[in-house]
């Protein structure tokens, strides 16, 4: 991944399901907007083009770790070119709920070659900051179960057939994902946020980390500055 030279900023949140990253991202977006920044939020796996294929595959449990990985890379490429880069060029702040690191952690946990998946995503632009919400499996499981009871098939790693019990499978699979995230912290300089604390404390920390990265003149970006 190469650093970008666009006038905008790209901030990313990472972490397993139940880490609270989406909540933190929403609060961050609120704050940035209220400060006068133009914000665009994008989610992992949300582009229309590949949604159909992902769905077909999921329905039939037809995805292998490799096709799962490649489909997500396709989706990401589509989103990068149509949703992420244009707002960056326009000087906006792009907030990404998950980024290539999700693929690095999940695909490797599924048995895909660690180096291959990194090279696969080398076309991505390096974020200005990536926040990793680190949480123990038990805490995330408690949050997920309290919220919606049913664990998602692929999030629980049920496709790997390690356990027919979703909770047990989740524990095993996400345990591996956490190990992979730990590697990424050093390799890619992810900013760790311990995600066990209160939502408000975490958000304060997030804003403290983000604030110095905001160019003050972004507040006054207008038409007269664009060429």
């Amino acid at each position: 991944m190469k650093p970008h030279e666009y006038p905008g900023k790209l901030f990313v949140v990472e972490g397993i399901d139940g880490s609270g990253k989406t909540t933190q991202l929403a609060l961050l977006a609120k704050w940035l907007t209220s400060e006068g920044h133009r914000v665009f939020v994008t989610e992992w796996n949300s582009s229309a083009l590949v949604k159909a294929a992902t769905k077909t595959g999921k329905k039939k449990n037809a995805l292998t770790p490799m096709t799962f990985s490649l489909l997500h890379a396709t989706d990401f490429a589509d989103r990068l070119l149509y949703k992420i880069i244009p707002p960056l060029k326009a000087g906006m702040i792009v907030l990404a709920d998950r980024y290539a690191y999700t693929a690095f952690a999940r695909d490797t946990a599924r048995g895909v070659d660690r180096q291959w998946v990194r090279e696969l995503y080398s076309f991505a632009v390096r974020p200005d900051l990536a926040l990793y919400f680190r949480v123990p499996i038990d805490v995330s499981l408690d949050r997920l179960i309290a919220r919606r009871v049913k664990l998602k098939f692929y999030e629980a790693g049920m496709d790997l057939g390690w356990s027919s019990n979703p909770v047990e499978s989740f524990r095993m699979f996400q345990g591996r994902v956490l190990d992979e995230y730990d590697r990424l912290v050093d390799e890619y300089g992810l900013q760790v946020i311990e995600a066990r604390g209160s939502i408000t404390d975490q958000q304060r920390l997030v804003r403290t980390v983000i604030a110095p990265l905001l160019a003050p003149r972004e507040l006054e970006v207008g038409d007269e500055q664009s060429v």
Partner: protein
Amino acid sequence: MSSPSDDARPPIGAPDDGDSAAGIQPGRYYGRGIPYLPINGYPGKLIAIEGTDGVGRSTQIQLLREWLEVQGYGVVETGWTRSPLMQPTIELAKSSNTLNKLTFVLLYATDFADRLEKEIIPALKAGFVVLSDRYIFTALARAGVRGVDRPWLRSLYGFAIAPHLVFYLKVDVKTLIGRVLAARGMDFWESGMDLKHGDDIYDSFRDYQNKLLREYASMADEFHFRTVDARRPVDYIQEELRRQVAAFLEAR
């Protein structure tokens, strides 16, 4: 846009050390491979027939299959973009003409991965001769023409298995134009009209196919192509294919 980075990466066949083509081993992964699918020692053989549109690949494959089966070999055929998982998505994307070159490359790679895991590898494991109508070289050539980073493409397809034999059916553009016009006319994608080099489909077809041929030529050494002159009559070509396949299968 940010194209795949230009960082120096080892070419296919040389994961960490050594020099390019020397590292290719037929029947093994080109690059990093699929760790959860070890394929060493599988008895089947993979034979790829490559070449641009209109060189007569499918005719040759039919004849080769017949002949192999008469000899007693079990044969499985596989093609390019035929996987049930991705076919609808690719057709949709093609018809709406919304794909950019990167997503195009990745969709085809996904499709290939599906076929590799579900058709090719099981067939090789079971001892079949797998005849592949086009292989990754088609993708490499098309993406190469469209300016996608070559080292990145080779790393991407590092999960592909190096065929035991790659036959490249080669024709010149003039012959190709005659055949395509006689058979069915020029279509949008075969003419590279997505590259938007002008409205004239004839000029576009000629330029695009010329570029494709140059891409194939540049891969011939790298991937150990056995180049076959496809301007000759069908029977002559088939005879040459059979001679080379027989020599390979009998040498084992």
